[in-house]
């Protein structure tokens, strides 16, 4: 199993009250698969993804990615894990506004052990003509493509996508989802996506529905739908 999460718990202290965000989550995802975590706002899906991405730490339970037990890693090793193994894609792209497309991608390739060729990546996301543009000069869809290029340039084992189409219109969302599917199939990258768009679940091998910090349903698809065919 590529990702194994067992009995994961996480809570936050807010003043005197304690907010239990994850109440013993367990899930698995195989290498090269696409997983989707579905849930409404406040269900704990972002917290779960942050822990799997090595950005946050759990209170208890275990998280293993590619055989690496994340809960046992020191801060420095966790940094190495994010650096070498994980690609991040955010809802609002998080591009650095004063860096060009190429430079935004270089922000990650700069610290990667074996980054992919820049032209190959730009070609893969269809932005070879925009490589000197600044984020402001791009549409929302193009900006998300840059974010995808930035995430895949290090050739990560795991691609974590936080609401990747949350800020995009229907047409553009299809383009971005198709690109993610292409990356998943072309590079064999394991993709874990969080969204509240249930339709996106059709393109995943496994869908976990989260509510109130608990998994209420796990759905496994024998066959996944092509991204362009998904309707919502």
């Amino acid at each position, binding site marked *: 199993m590529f990702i194994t999460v067992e009995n994961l718990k996480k809570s936050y202290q807010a003043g005197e009250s304690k907010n239990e965000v994850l109440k013993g989550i367990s899930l698995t995802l195989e290498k090269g698969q696409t997983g989707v975590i579905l849930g409404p706002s406040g269900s704990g899906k*972002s917290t779960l993804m*942050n822990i799997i*991405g090595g*950005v*946050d730490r759990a209170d208890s339970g275990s998280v293993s990615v590619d055989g690496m037990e994340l809960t046992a890693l020191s801060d*420095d090793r966790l*940094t*190495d*894990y*994010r*650096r*070498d193994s*994980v690609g*991040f894609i*955010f*809802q*609002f*792209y*998080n*591009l*650095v*506004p*004063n*860096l060009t497309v*190429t*430079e935004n991608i*270089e*922000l*990650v*390739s*700069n*610290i990667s052990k074996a980054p992919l060729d820049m032209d190959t990546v730009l070609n893969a996301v269809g932005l070879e003509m925009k490589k000197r543009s*600044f*984020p*402001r*000069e791009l549409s929302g869809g193009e*900006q998300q493509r840059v974010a995808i290029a930035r995430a895949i340039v290090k050739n990560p084992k795991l691609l974590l996508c*936080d609401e990747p189409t949350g*800020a995009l219109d229907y047409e553009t969302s299809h383009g971005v989802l198709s690109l993610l599917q292409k990356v998943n199939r072309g590079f064999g990258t394991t993709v874990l996506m969080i969204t509240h768009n249930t339709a996106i679940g059709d393109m995943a091998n496994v869908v976990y529905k989260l509510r109130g910090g608990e998994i209420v349903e796990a759905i496994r698809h024998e066959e996944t739908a092509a991204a362009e065919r998904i309707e919502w």
Partner: protein
Amino acid sequence: MVLFKKVIRTMLEHKARYIGSMLLLMISSMMFITMNLTSMNLDNMFRKFSERNALSDAEFSTDAYIDAAAFGRQFSAKVEGGGTADCKVKPGQTLRVFSAMDEVNVPAVQEGKLPGSSEIMIDRPFAQTNGYRIGDKITIAGRKFTVSGYALLPNFIYVIKSKEEMMNDSTAFGIAVVGKENFETLPGGNRVYAIRFDDRENIKSQEASVKNALRSQGIQITKWQSTARKVNVSYIPMEINVLSTMSATVPLAMLALACALLGMLMWRTIKSESVVIGTFYAQGYRRRQLRRHYLTFPLLISIIGSVIGSALGLLLVNSELRFMLTAFPMPVYETILNPWLVVFAVVLPVIVLCGVTWWIIGRTLKTAPAVLMKGGETKGEVNFLERSLRLDHSGFNTKFRVREQVRSLSRTFFLLFGVVVATMLMLYGLTMKSSVDYMLGEGISELYDFKYEYVFTLVKTGAPPAGTEQFNAAYVSLADNEDISFYVTGVLPDTEKVRLKDASGQSFQPEQTTITATLAQKLNVKSGDSVTVFDTENGKKHTFTIEKIADTYAGDFLFLPLDRFNAEFGYPAGAYLGIWSGKAMTFAEGEIQSTKSIDAVVAGLGKMIDQMGPMVYGLIAAAFLLGLIILYIVTGLVVDESRTSISLMKVFGYRKKEIGKLVLDSNTLIVVLGYLLGIPALLGTAGAFFASLTESLQVVLPVKLNVLYMLFGFIVVMLTYEFAKWMCRKKVARVPMSEALKAGTE
């Protein structure tokens, strides 16, 4: 009131920025008030002392008695005869005793009373250093006197034995005043006449007329000392000039820095609060209410900064003045406190800072509330420089740092300007030291190959003493500007005592009309040009065509072959006024008008350099503080403005060191550039400044900065930068990864 609370909270959130701005303003106002009031008071004291105690325009000695009253009437001047005598008090201790004058160079009493019979007034530093109090007895040249008070003399304000000494040693030299009858009883006295013209214009021409008149009466002038060239007096206007130049430029540079900093901070505050402004706007707040709210920031900072600074400045005036008066003792009439100066020191920063903020907020308030609520129009905008930069072939780290700099041009210019000012401040004292060092090493010691210069009372002919070399000289002023004066010196064409070289370093003999490079620069002449001067002795005009320029900084000279000099100035062939010697010589009494020891000149300048130590270190400390404030604020701004990028880098797996290298080091280029630009800016400013001192200093200071000092300055600047970065490192560490996860930068 609610909005005012917001101002205070915003300021407390960014304490370093606002305290930094206040500090800059405080320093600026403090320096402005202290330096201006000190120079104003010194100037006032000097003027009043000169007028009330009738400072002479010249002092001279003759070989015959002059009817001073008649002579005064003839030239519309006050003329009075008096005398001076250098008397031994103890071994190695000399008092220059002046006879008390009634009309010209009237002594002032600092404490005690004017001397009666067998009484003497001495200068306070000499008295204090050597333990004499009013009422004590002092034996001078075998005669006992009672100290009646402490004396101040308008013609001997800066107490130094000779101009070569530069700094006085009160244990070895002082001045004293005795009544005229008592003076006659002292041995070795010289009769000296002092003259003060009623017409206060064209003093040099009037001096020349007096000299001509004396000669026409068959009276020989054995010594003539113009007050404008007497260091005991001329140092005071020079010091006032230095202070008033500094009091205008240094505080204004600081104020400009404070304005740039606060303008930049306000720009950022308003930009970052565009959502808040939009919301206020949408809820019905009027433009003027919002404008008033944002003007509270500069108003508070400028008023607090400038009022505290001005108050500190006022407190420091007396100490500064007292310090200056220990070097230049003068009567204290009253301390001038110009209230307009304080008003100006407070109002100017308020107007400038509020004006800058008014303009910035005006621009923002023109934007529609809906746009403001979305974060404003400028979010993510790329400026022309960012767009035109092509960095394809550079490494990512370089690209990132360059982009950080061009992202905020105002921040970059502020940093650049700040480092330039700090560099200039730090290296100013060191430049002065280098320049004096250079003048000593490369100027005087290079030019002269002798130890002593003796100037005779009367022109001589015939062979000079063995081992010496003769010269003749005339002190001349430019025909069309009598403020520019210099020596025309006649030297042997095959001289061995004066070593000249041209700009390429090639030695040459003064066989032609040769001018020193500094004088050529001052007169704006080159080879082939003519210079017309008048002899300050007799007013006769002479025109010289420049044939060669000598590359030396030893002074303002025009060299002629001796024969040509004698023919031009009407001396018999072979005549000479002085000799240069490799060893000390003795002469008959009255034979020598003046003696100059090159070693004494060098030692005097060396002493001056030693005395500059505290000033040099003080300036370095001030520059360090200023640099630290600027670098800390700018580095802090870079961190604040890069929070999302820093957070993002942490998410991507950047290590602390890597983030530090990218973000904190992004200013390195500008700091180095600022330092490099600061050097020529300093040298240019110092050049203009030194040129203004030339007349009073009687030496030409070349502007030089030793490479080692440059390196030292660079190390200090980089250490300050590293310190500022170290202080900001915690700020970087505090940026959480959640910042990137929760919000998008675009």
